[in-house]
């Protein structure tokens, strides 16, 4: 048994360290009382498994919260209440017959709209795919269903994942539940906002250049971008095939770990999916009272200096000037806390990426299939070329992001430019990968913000694509290197009453080192006292449901 002062000492630390962290010890005590891991997913599935509540009751409650918050947030592109309730009823009847329904029995989950769901419209946020109903489930979705999860609906996103604010959806913007005048981030903004607003217990997102981590940071939730090849891409509407990853967004590290455990693993339908066996990522996560006083002793971490504006040469990469003070401060607080937990934190260096050349080249190719011939919307025209032009013009790039990116990618792959752009970018990618792996040879994890700012205002950057691209610089190198990362809340920026916005910390681990990474994140989460409770009306309805 651990000494009884453990919790006390962490509470003291919390008080010492920061004033802008919202602590809610009651929540923590709750998880201790339950004796299980922290997070509504664990609570819910334990309750369902113990028959304390039914999957139907749970689903009904979440659907109620979903619809009540939806008018203000617009997180969902498709919700099928009836289908969700049918799934829940099926799980209840199986439970009643004593069947083992699976590790996510009755857990209501949302799915980003670029993951195919059989029988449920999948548009990837594009008008061009309006009306497209897949004939199959993406592997990650199929695994969730097989584990007993209930899919509530499809979440909004920047069209085809191209954007970082959810303002580039072909259908609607999504708003940040912390402050609806702000964006939720993107492209998995719908998933992150829905989890933050408790419209679902967890959600699936996808991350090509930060699309899970940045919205998780903006919305104060936990997002995991797994190692490339850890989760099958089968059924994921491709943006950039060599960078795309499917991962969970949840309210706690333990919840995210539980979802990842279910969706990860080899898949015959994806040749780039790893054959490595999957661990139970929740197995190494200890409840708070089981932690020693220095749980991170002998851990070596490195802060990527360019990403924090602290490095002498930071100006070289152009990052220094874009990281705002509130983010730097929150991260510095997190570093101090990690040091208090026993970790050594040093500084490391990163190089600017060539991400966009690769991402957009692959995207230009992946989006060729939206030609109006076999599915989705077909433009009216009397001639083949015009039909292509009309279908693609009206279907894709109703938001300029898509058209712009297709053009840039096409250009980079064109004869005479290939060597200068695509090939060179691949060479730099090899260097990035080598350097990050070298750094991870010396350190257990690297850390940096998941975004240089907190959630910005709606419309603030939509006319300034370059600054939006710059915002991705915190996250894209990781995708080039294929490494895993966890983004979790590490504090708040802005102290004026009611408008504090969450700051996310990104922990980067070794390839296929998700288990260690999640352990680290879990220890930080359980001890930091950073508790993300929504300041708005969403609290009431959410807590009402939990009672």
């Amino acid at each position, binding site marked *: 048994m651990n000494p009884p002062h453990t919790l006390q000492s962490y509470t003291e630390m919390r008080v010492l360290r920061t004033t802008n962290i919202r602590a809610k010890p009651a929540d923590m005590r709750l998880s201790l009382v339950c004796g299980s891991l922290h997070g509504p997913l664990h609570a819910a599935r334990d309750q369902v498994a113990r028959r304390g509540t039914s999957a139907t009751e749970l689903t009904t409650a979440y659907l109620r919260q979903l619809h009540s918050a939806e008018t203000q947030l617009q997180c969902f592109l498709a919700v099928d209440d009836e289908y969700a309730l049918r799934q829940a009823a099926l799980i209840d009847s199986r439970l009643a017959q004593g069947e083992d329904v699976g590790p996510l029995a009755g857990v209501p989950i949302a799915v980003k709209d*670029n*993951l*195919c769901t059989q029988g449920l419209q*999948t548009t*990837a946020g594009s008008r061009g*795919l309006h*009306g*497209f*109903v*897949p*004939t*199959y489930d*993406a592997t990650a979705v199929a695994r969730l269903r097989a584990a007993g999860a209930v899919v509530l609906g499809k979440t909004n996103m920047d069209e085809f994942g191209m954007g970082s604010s959810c303002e580039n959806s072909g259908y609607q913007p999504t708003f940040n539940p912390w402050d609806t005048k702000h964006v939720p981030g993107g492209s998995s903004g719908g998933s992150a906002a829905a989890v933050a607003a408790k419209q679902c217990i967890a959600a699936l997102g996808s991350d090509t250049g930060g699309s899970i981590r940045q919205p998780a940071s903006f919305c104060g939730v936990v997002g995991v971008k797994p190692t490339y090849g850890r989760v099958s*891409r*089968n*059924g*994921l*509407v*491709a943006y*950039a*095939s*060599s960078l795309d990853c499917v991962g969970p967004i949840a309210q706690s590290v333990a919840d995210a770990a539980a979802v990842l455990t279910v969706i990860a693993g080899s898949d*015959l*339908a*994806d*040749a*780039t999916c790893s054959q490595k066996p999957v661990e139970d990522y929740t197995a190494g996560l200890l409840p708070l009272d089981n932690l020693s006083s220095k749980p991170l002793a002998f851990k070596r971490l490195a802060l990527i200096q360019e990403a924090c504006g602290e490095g002498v040469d930071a100006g070289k990469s152009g990052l220094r000037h874009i990281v705002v003070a509130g983010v730097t401060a929150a991260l510095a607080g997190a570093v101090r806390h990690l040091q208090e937990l026993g970790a050594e934190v040093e500084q490391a260096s990163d190089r600017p990426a060539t991400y966009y050349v690769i991402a957009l*080249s*692959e995207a*230009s*190719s992946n*989006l*060729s*299939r939206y*030609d109006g*011939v*076999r*599915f*989705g*919307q*077909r433009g*009216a*025209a*009397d*001639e*083949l070329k*015009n*039909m*292509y032009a009309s279908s693609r013009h009206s279907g894709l790039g109703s938001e300029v992001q898509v058209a712009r990116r297709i053009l840039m990618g*096409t250009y980079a*792959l*064109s*004869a005479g430019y*290939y060597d200068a752009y*695509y090939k060179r970018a691949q060479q730099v990618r090899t260097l990035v990968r080598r350097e990050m792996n070298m750094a991870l040879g010396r350190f257990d994890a690297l850390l940096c913000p998941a975004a240089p700012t907190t959630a910005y205002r709606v419309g603030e950057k939509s006319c300034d694509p370059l600054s939006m691209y710059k915002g991705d610089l915190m996250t894209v190198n990781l995708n080039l290197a294929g490494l895993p990362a966890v983004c979790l809340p590490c504090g708040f920026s802005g102290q004026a009453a009611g408008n504090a916005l969450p700051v996310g910390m990104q922990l980067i681990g070794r390839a296929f080192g998700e288990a260690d990474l999640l352990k680290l994140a879990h220890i930080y989460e359980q001890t930091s006292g950073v508790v993300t409770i929504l300041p708005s009306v969403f609290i009431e309805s959410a807590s009402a449901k939990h009672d």
Partner: protein
Amino acid sequence: MTYYSMGMQVVRCCSRAGVPGPCTRQWAVQLRSLAATGACRRASSGTCTAALRNVAAAASAAGVATDGASISSSSSSTSTQPAAKVDYEAVIGIETHVQLSTKTKAFCSCASEFGAEPNSNICPVCLGHPGTLPVLNADVVRKGVLAGLALDATICLSSKFDRKQYFYPDLPKGYQISQYDVPLCEGGWVEVVVPDSGAGTSVRRIGITRAHLEEDAGKLVHGGAASLSGSDYSLVDFNRAGVPLLEIVSEPDLRTGAEAAAYGAEMRRIMRFLGVSDGNMAEGSMRCDVNISVRPRGRAAFGTKVEIKNMNSFNAMQRAIEFEIVRQVDALEGGREGEVVQETRLWDEGRQCTYSMRKKEGLADYRYFPEPDLPELTLTEAYVQELRASMPELPRQLRERLLGLGLSQYDVLVLSDDAEVAAYFDAVLAAGAPAKPAANWVMGDVMAHCKEVRLGWEQLAARMAPAALAEMISLIEDGTISGKIGKDVLPALLAGEGGAGGGSVRALVEARGLVQISDPAALAAIVDGVLAANSKQLQAYREGKTKLQGFFVGAVMKESKGRANPKELNRILMQRLAAPPS
């Protein structure tokens, strides 16, 4: 009726995809003007006739038709004075697309059979639905490596796939998965036996540049007309989309249409012997694109290259090349160099000419880049060695072996043309028949029978066991029956009455009383009887009318009901005729 049902299929395929929209109708509108824009415009009939006339003229003057080794200008052909002729030669390279006969497609598990109901062998992967990923079929690699080994190519232990990008309605993903800069097979050669202008043959080695794996596209079906031009609408059948192809690129080593046809035939033979493709040109499972230019003999630089497509037999390929050589030489001779431009021309089988399909304006930019959905294709040396060890006998090796048996070049070419024929022939040899008579029987009456009743050689073997034919041949060889009786017995064998050989044919022959009479005493008795019964003719013979020998042979044969051993009969007859009666 056909189009209607195909239209229904396209709609079905769309509804599978969950598309509410009316695919077919809009589709109908959109391709109509593709034809109208002149993307595929035929040459005027005037051009065609003119070129045809030139073929005739040049062929008669310079002997283009068969060997074509030397083509002189046709303009001087009608002239009586021998003006200074420029001697031209053609430079020809061939790209062969071989459909690999795997059970399923290259990157999904749909059946890859030919001739199925339109859009019945499709799935989200081969339709390029959002989110789908290709997974490489191992049998595609196996067959590709086998073919590469047969072409004596280097198998690249590490190759990769790339995307070749262009838009066309039959290409579901907007790109074709192919291999660009690192193909599966590099270098290699194929031995080609070319019939020359006389009765002989010559053997040439044609270099193979590379062979790579890729996927086939779907098929457009044009409605309202026989071809794209004039059609009202077009439908797409995606059954073929994703069927594996091996594209084999030859060096520009070929010089004549006959060589090209022989190259194509040998390529098909190799693929069939390996069992990696059925090589059926009519069904499109083997397609040849010809690149051809002409240049004055002795010049190193190539002329302007023209691509010819749409030939559905090797014979057509030969004729298309011969037409094109004459067209190009004629243009150059006539000072109309502008008529030879870099373009794609189609062969019109009906009118026996090529016509321009599209002009190439510079190189098409396919924006190749490595396929990120497929990892590098890595093979081990052990895998390649295992396949090498499992290789069946190749046509070239078979030819060498058959020549070694003492068969003529002609026999060898006929027997080795088809793996099934060769297998049957080998089985006959294995059952003990000597090579030459076995070859004669297989290539003669047996082959004629198979052609006449359209019988495959495997079916034939089920009816007439090779051992039965071998037994019959041995009965002829040992004098049990005559060759003539052999021919009479054959229909019974072909009808399956000969059993499995090894005695069953002898039993049949005996049961029918067809065993040859070789016993000298028995034959002598018949001969004596005949001579006695025809004393007048005997006397005439002895008086010098030796032509009557045939009369006696005939009479003896008749008397023996055809069973007399002809050789023995002759010996005894001559003996009796020479000796005065005792």
